[in-house]
């Protein structure tokens, strides 16, 4: 009897221990790994999680594997054992470069009742990153052609570098594919850049205006970015947004007089084309000019004055001040149609009617921003190679190789590559080709 009691007790405690250990095994643990940049990261995982893992093996490019976690070992041999369609596989932690939990991956091993209810994440319409990720989802869904597509292209950074006519062309092509009458929104956050690129941008936008509704949605748009906004049919501000300061410069000073006169003429022409007052052109470009205006309280019609006496009731520009509009006076004095903080507000303001988000404009922007980072990083290394190449034959070969690499980068990102070399983008390609030819000649002389 006593023995049986002791046995019973032992049995109960053993079952208890097993239950506890099973619970421990099911507990989540933080799994450390290094990402592709060598930065330390970690993620909380547990048995049964569906994961996609990127790992490296030898010198090969990173590979991917997806499956359900069967075991996580953080002692001695640190690894994750996955149950995949091709059987169990082990991935060592030091080979892992990324881990993504994917609850929605179908798994034949997973019991239906274990599948969590789909998580309804509140999509933040105002965050470009969030919208970029939603673009991925909408891209896969068939378009509802009874609705208008709103194609939002975010344009950031320097005009000519990340902010390029190529991406505008791309978003216009996407809108064309859906048919005429789409709404293309250029969401601008830029301090300006190359006027030459600005002229290309004008041609692309004015052409697109024939088929679609082009809208500039401004966070801030200065100089050439402001020029881009003025190319559009309509302008909308975000809260606090502003635009103006279209002075044409050479380095840090105003361009020569002839160029300035040409530029003011171009600006006047553009303003007239878009039914905006041509009187804005001069104060947009030069600081020693006057601009004031009066608004009829009954009709709302506005009269602009450029006289020194500032006849108008509201002063916009005087010596020492370039013309800028902000989100308040821009709307009040008819530059913009209103203020919108997100796409829903924008659609309402523009009275679009039935619409849906369309295109991959935000992704185009994030790709460009990433590309610029990559190119700048590589350009620094190439510059270092150039500086330290030496003067012998091997040094010359090295320089030729570096310049050829610059030419390759230049094919895709001409302005970024040229700027990183401190060259005028217009002549950079020719100049580099000449340098390569010169180095080849030097090499021949040395033989």
């Amino acid at each position, binding site marked *: 009897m*006593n023995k049986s*009691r*002791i046995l*019973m*007790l032992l049995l109960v405690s053993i079952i208890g221990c097993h239950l506890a250990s099973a619970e421990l095994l099911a507990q989540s643990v933080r799994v450390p790994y290094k990402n592709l*940049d*060598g*930065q330390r990261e970690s993620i909380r995982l547990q048995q049964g999680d569906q994961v996609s893992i990127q790992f490296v093996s030898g010198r090969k490019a990173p590979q991917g594997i997806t499956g359900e976690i069967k075991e996580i070992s953080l002692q001695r041999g640190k690894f994750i054992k996955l149950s995949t369609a091709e059987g169990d596989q082990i991935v060592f932690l030091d080979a892992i470069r990324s881990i993504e939990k994917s609850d929605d991956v179908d798994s034949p091993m997973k019991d239906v009742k274990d599948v969590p209810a789909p998580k309804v994440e509140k999509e*933040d319409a*105002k*965050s470009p990153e969030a919208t970029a990720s939603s673009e991925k989802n909408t891209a896969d869904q068939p378009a509802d052609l009874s609705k208008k597509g709103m194609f939002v292209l975010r344009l950031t950074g320097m005009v000519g570098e990340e902010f390029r006519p190529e991406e505008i062309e791309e978003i216009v092509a996407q809108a064309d594919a859906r048919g005429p009458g789409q709404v293309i929104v250029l969401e601008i956050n830029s*301090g300006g850049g190359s006027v030459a690129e600005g002229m290309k941008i004008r041609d692309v936008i004015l052409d697109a205006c024939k088929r679609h509704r082009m809208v500039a949605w401004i*966070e*801030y748009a*200065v*100089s050439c970015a402001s020029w881009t906004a003025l190319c559009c049919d309509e302008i909308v501000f975000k*809260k*606090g*947004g*502003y635009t*103006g*300061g279209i*002075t044409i*410069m050479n*380095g*840090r*000073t*105003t361009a020569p007089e002839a160029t300035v006169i040409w530029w003011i003429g171009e600006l006047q022409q553009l303003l007239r084309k878009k039914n905006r007052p041509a009187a804005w052109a001069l104060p947009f*470009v*030069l*600081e*020693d000019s006057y601009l004031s205006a009066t608004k009829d309280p009954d009709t709302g019609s506005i009269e602009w004055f450029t006289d020194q006496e500032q006849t108008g009731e509201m002063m916009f520009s005087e010596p*020492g*001040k*370039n013309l*800028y509009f*902000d*989100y308040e006076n821009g709307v009040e004095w008819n530059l913009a149609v209103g203020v919108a*903080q997100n796409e829903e507000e924008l659609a309402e303001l523009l009275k679009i009617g039935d619409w849906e988000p369309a295109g991959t404009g935000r992704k185009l922007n994030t790709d460009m921003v990433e590309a610029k980072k990559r190119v*700048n*990083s590589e350009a*620094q*290394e190439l510059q*270092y190679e150039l*500086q*330290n*190449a*030496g003067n012998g034959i091997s040094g010359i070969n090295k320089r030729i190789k570096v310049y050829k690499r610059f030419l390759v980068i230049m094919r895709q990102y001409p302005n970024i590559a040229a700027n990183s070399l401190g060259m005028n983008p217009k002549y950079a390609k020719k100049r580099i080709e000449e340098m390569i030819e010169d180095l080849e000649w030097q090499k021949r002389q040395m033989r």
Partner: protein
Amino acid sequence: MMTSVRKLPLVCLAFLLAGSAWSLAALAPDGVDAQADLDTQEDSVRVYVVPIRGQVGTDIVPRIYEEVIEDIKEQKPDIVVFELESSDERNVYDDNFVDIYEGEVFDEQRERSMLMVPEMTELRVMFDDKLPGDMKQVLWVHDAVGASSALGLAWCDFYMTPDAKIGNMGASVRRSRGAAGDSNVEAKFGQAAFQGLVRITAYGDCDPMNPTRRKLINAMAMPEMSLSVFMMGRQYMMANHKEYETVLDANDEMECRLTAEMCDDLCISDGTAESIEDLMVLLGERQFMLVEGKAGQIVADHYEGWRDAYARAIDAYQSYQKWMKRASGKNFRSSLSKAEKALKSLRSNVMRYPEVSRRMGGLTTDRIDIMLRELEKMKRSGKGRPGGGGGGGGPRGPAGS
């Protein structure tokens, strides 16, 4: 012995029962008082305090507030109080620290807020976009002197502590103007920088907006602008001249700065509160409870984390320089190895905290990678710096080191 073994299951059972009873007792509210406490807590307004403290660009960076926002969303408070304390003139983390030889140690050059206007905008927009609209946001300024004063005017509900000051936000305007080569470009650059500040303060535009509020921002951002004011009932009317009743800024060479008292008297702020209790009274909320959020810890951890990393990075950089100098003769390889180790340590600190790179004058990981490659080459060739010509000055070091 046998008897005790026999009684073991009973003893265990007794312990289990006792344990359960104790835990149940612990869970149950302590009579009527506890119930009353719970009722009071339910009626109380839940307040979450978010510190925004230190130097803009290093201590105050948007990325740490992303985590804070997640916590706020989880805690679901009724009111979020942003405690802004950032000054170009004093150490907001330690007012009492006085060096016995040097007096108060505050390196104005290094601790002055960085002119990261786009980052400040991102921070302000983030709180507007990502927090639910029904969550009241209140700014409580402990000090906002320098670039951070743009944030100090960026909330509609705006209170100050009695000793707080606000103003002198124009360093970015001055810098932009200084970068211009002529008057046209100066006007263009200066105005663009000014509008950047206005964009932040736009989030403090209340409805209805005071029509002369922009004059205050003009005077705080542009040194040449003066400021005077007169009161129309409870509303101030300001202008950028010295003609009105009270002149607040007569100096044409410095930007305007105001004390809490001035702001309170002229109804620029909504009031002055010394403590959170005072603030809640001013907000008309007598019953409130502070939510124990993670914000304080996140901000403190970041402050300590990046500054420790910076100290380590400086040590590593000095060590790198030392071993590079010693890299000759029979110690060549071993010195280079030590220099390499120091450089790798520097890299890991810069990688972990981008603020370290900023404080070191923009020493990026790309740059450090090039330095590492240079070292690698030296090790392989067994010679000094590659490229010849006497070394060419070597890699660029941190500013001021």
